[in-house]
C-alpha cells in the first residue's frame, strides 16, 4: 500500500531490515548489514526510540538478538521509557534476546593519572554480544564519551578502533549522536561512520511539532532523499515515504452510488467512479456533510467499510445529525463498517495527520474515506504545505483504489469565488460538486451543481438539494417552484 519513491533494488549491498514502518521502504530494504549506521539529531527527536525499535524488532521479528548500550540513560529508565510503546523490553532481557548496558561516567569523579585506553568499554560490549549472541548493536549517545573522558585524543583513537572492531564482529550497528552547530554531530561522529547516515529533525510550526527523517548518505545504495515525516505513537515509530505517485495507478471503470439516486442520475446515471476523488465544496449549512454521509451510508449498506475523518464534529454529533435526515449509522458503527476518526487538525502537525491516515487505512482497509472538511487543515500549516499534504493524501488514496470524498467550506456566495479551491487541489479531483444557499422568494434553498466529473456525461443543471427526515433528494430547481 505504501509506495516507495522509486523501486529501489540495490544489488551488492546486504540489507538488515529494521522492521520499522516506512524506513525499510526508503532505504530499499534496511540498514547496511554488518556495518554501522549513524543517527544524528537534536535532543528529543526520537533517536533513542528509533534505535531501540531496531533492537526490539530485530529480536522479535527477525531472530536477531541485540545489544543496547546507553550512554545517557540507566537500564531501568530505558525499560520504563519504551514500556508505553508496548515493547516489553524487560521480557526480552529476561529471555536473553536483548542485553542492556548503561555506561555511566561521572566526569568529576575521574582523575586522569597517565596513559589509558577504553578497553573496558570493548570488554563490556563484547561480553554483552556474547551473552545473547547479538547480531545487532546500538550505541546510544556515544558522543557522551567526549564529555566524560578527559582526553579527546584518546577517545578519537579509540572510536576508530571501536568501529573497526564492530565491523570485524559482523554486527549491524546503530550509533546515535547529538546534532552539532556546524557539523552533523557535535563531536564529528560522522567521521567514523561512513556507510549510512540518517538525520532526524524536530520542528515546531504554529506551536505544532513535527518530526522528520532524512537519509543523508547511504554508500553503495540508492535511497529516498526527501525529508520524510515520522510519527511516534503506541505502535512505535513510523516513517512515511511520501511518494509522488506519478500517474501510473490503475483506474476503475466500476461505479459506486452516491447514496442519492437523483444525484446518481446527474452523474451519468451511475454515481461516482470507484477509487476516484470527489470534492464537495460549498457554503456553511449547504449540505456538504449530509452528501458525504449519504455516500458513507450507501457504502456501508452494501457491506463495504468507510473511514470518516471528522475535523469539526464529534462522532456523537454526526450520528445525531445524520439520524435527523434518515441516515442511521449506528448499526454500521456497531458492525465495524463505519469508523469515525474525529480529531482537531490543530492538535497535530500536517505530517502527523498524513501518517495517521496511512495507519488507519492500513488497519481498516476501507472502501471509502471521507475527509470532512479539508479546509480546517489550512489552520495548521502554510498554504503551500497544506496543498502538498492534501496532494499526498489524494495520491495515496488513489493508489490504494479507495474512493475518497473531501468536503471544503467556502465563504461568501459569489460563483466565481466558489469555483476556486483555496487548497489548490482541483486538478487532482475527479468529480466536483458545488453546493450553495440561495434566496428563493420567501425561503432559502440549497443549490447543487456538478462543476466537473471526469469520464462521464454529467448534468450541467443547477438542482435543488432537499434534506428531510426521509433522506436527501435532488430536484429540478425550476419545477419545484411551480405551483402544485
Amino acid at each position, binding site marked *: 500500500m505504501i509506495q516507495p519513491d522509486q523501486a529501489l533494488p540495490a544489488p551488492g549491498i546486504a540489507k538488515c531490515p529494521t522492521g520499522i514502518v516506512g524506513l525499510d521502504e526508503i532505504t530499499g530494504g534496511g540498514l547496511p548489514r554488518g556495518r554501522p549506521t549513524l543517527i544524528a539529531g537534536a535532543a528529543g527527536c526520537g533517536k533513542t526510540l528509533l534505535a531501540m525499535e531496531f533492537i526490539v524488532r530485530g529480536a522479535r521479528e527477525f531472530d536477531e538478538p541485540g545489544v543496547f548500550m546507553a550512554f545517557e540513560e540507566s537500564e531501568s529508565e530505558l525499560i520504563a521509557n519504551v514500556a508505553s510503546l508496548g515493547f516489553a523490553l524487560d521480557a526480552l532481557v529476561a529471555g536473553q534476546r536483548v542485553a542492556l*548496558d548503561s555506561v555511566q561516567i561521572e566526569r568529576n569523579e575521574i582523575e*586522569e593519572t597517565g596513559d589509558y585506553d577504553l*578497553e*573496558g568499554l570493548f570488554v*563490556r560490549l563484547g561480553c554483552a554480544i556474547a551473552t545473547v549472541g547479538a547480531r545487532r548493536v546500538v550505541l546510544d549517545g556515544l558522543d557522551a564519551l567526549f564529555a566524560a573522558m578527559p582526553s579527546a585524543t584518546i577517545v578519537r583513537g579509540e572510536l576508530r578502533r571501536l568501529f573497526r572492531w564492530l565491523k570485524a564482529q559482523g554486527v549491524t550497528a546503530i550509533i546515535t549522536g547529538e546534532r552539532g552547530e556546524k557539523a552533523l554531530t557535535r563531536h564529528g561522529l560522522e567521521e567514523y561512520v561512513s556507510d549510512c547516515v540518517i538525520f532526524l529533525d524536530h520542528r515546531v510550526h504554529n506551536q505544532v511539532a513535527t518530526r522528520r527523517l532524512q537519509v543523508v548518505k547511504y554508500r553503495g545504495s540508492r535511497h529516498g532523499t526527501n525529508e520524510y515525516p515520522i510519527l511516534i505513537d503506541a505502535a512505535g515509530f513510523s516513517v512515511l515515504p511520501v511518494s509522488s505517485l506519478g500517474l501510473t495507478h490503475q483506474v476503475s471503470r466500476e461505479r459506486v452510488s452516491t447514496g442519492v439516486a437523483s444525484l446518481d442520475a446527474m452523474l451519468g446515471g451511475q454515481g461516482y467512479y470507484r477509487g476516484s476523488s470527489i470534492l464537495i465544496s460549498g457554503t456553511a449549512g449547504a449540505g456538504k456533510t449530509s452528501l458525504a454521509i449519504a455516500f458513507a451510508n450507501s457504502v456501508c449498506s452494501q457491506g463495504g467499510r468507510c473511514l470518516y475523518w471528522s475535523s469539526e464534529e464529534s462522532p456523537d454529533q454526526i450520528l445525531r445529525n445524520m439520524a435527523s435526515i434518515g441516515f442511521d449509522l449506528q448499526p454500521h458503527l456497531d458492525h465495524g463498517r463505519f469508523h469515525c476518526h474525529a480529531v482537531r487538525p490543530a492538535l497535530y502537525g500536517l505530517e502527523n495527520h498524513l501518517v495517521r491516515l496511512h495507519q488507519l487505512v492500513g488497519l481498516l482497509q476501507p472502501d471509502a474515506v471521507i475527509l470532512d472538511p479539508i479546509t480546517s487543515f489550512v489552520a495548521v500549516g502554510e498554504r503551500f504545505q497544506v496543498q502538498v499534504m492534501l496532494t499526498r493524501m489524494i495520491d495515496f488514496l488513489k493508489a490504494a483504489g479507495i474512493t475518497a470524498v473531501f468536503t471544503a467550506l467556502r465563504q461568501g456566495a459569489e460563483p466565481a469565488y466558489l469555483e476556486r479551491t483555496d487548497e489548490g487541489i482541483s486538478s487532482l479531483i475527479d468529480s466536483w460538486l458545488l453546493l450553495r444557499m440561495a434566496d428563493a422568494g420567501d425561503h432559502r434553498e440549497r443549490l447543487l451543481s456538478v462543476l466537473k466529473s471526469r469520464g462521464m456525461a454529467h448534468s450541467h443543471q443547477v438542482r435543488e438539494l432537499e434534506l428531510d427526515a426521509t433522506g436527501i433528494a435532488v430536484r429540478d430547481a425550476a419545477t419545484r417552484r411551480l405551483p402544485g
Partner: protein
Amino acid sequence: MTTIETAPASGPEPAGGWCLRLYVAGQNPRSVRALQNLKALCETHLAGRYDIEVIDLLENPTLARGDQIVAVPTLVRKLPEPVRKIIGDLSNTERVLVGLDLRPRR
C-alpha cells in the same frame, strides 16, 4: 585471573583501612606499570593499612559493569567512602594522591 594482593602483614588490619581495586585488561606493559606504581605509592603513603585487588577484565569480563569501568587501567577506591575513580597507569603520582584524597584538591 583475579589476584588478591594483601599488604605486608603487620598485625591485624587497622580500622579505617584502604580497600583499592585495580582494573586492567591483560598483562601488558601498561597494566604492569600501573600495578608497580600503585604498590610503590601505597607503601610510601598507606603502609600497613591497604588491600589491593587486581581484576583482569580479559579473565573476568562480566565484572566491568559493576564498577562502571570504561577506561583501563582504572583504580577504584572502595574504602574509605566515598568511592573514587582514577584512570591511567598511575604514573603521575601527584594526581593519584589528589584522586585518592591524600592531597588536598587545588
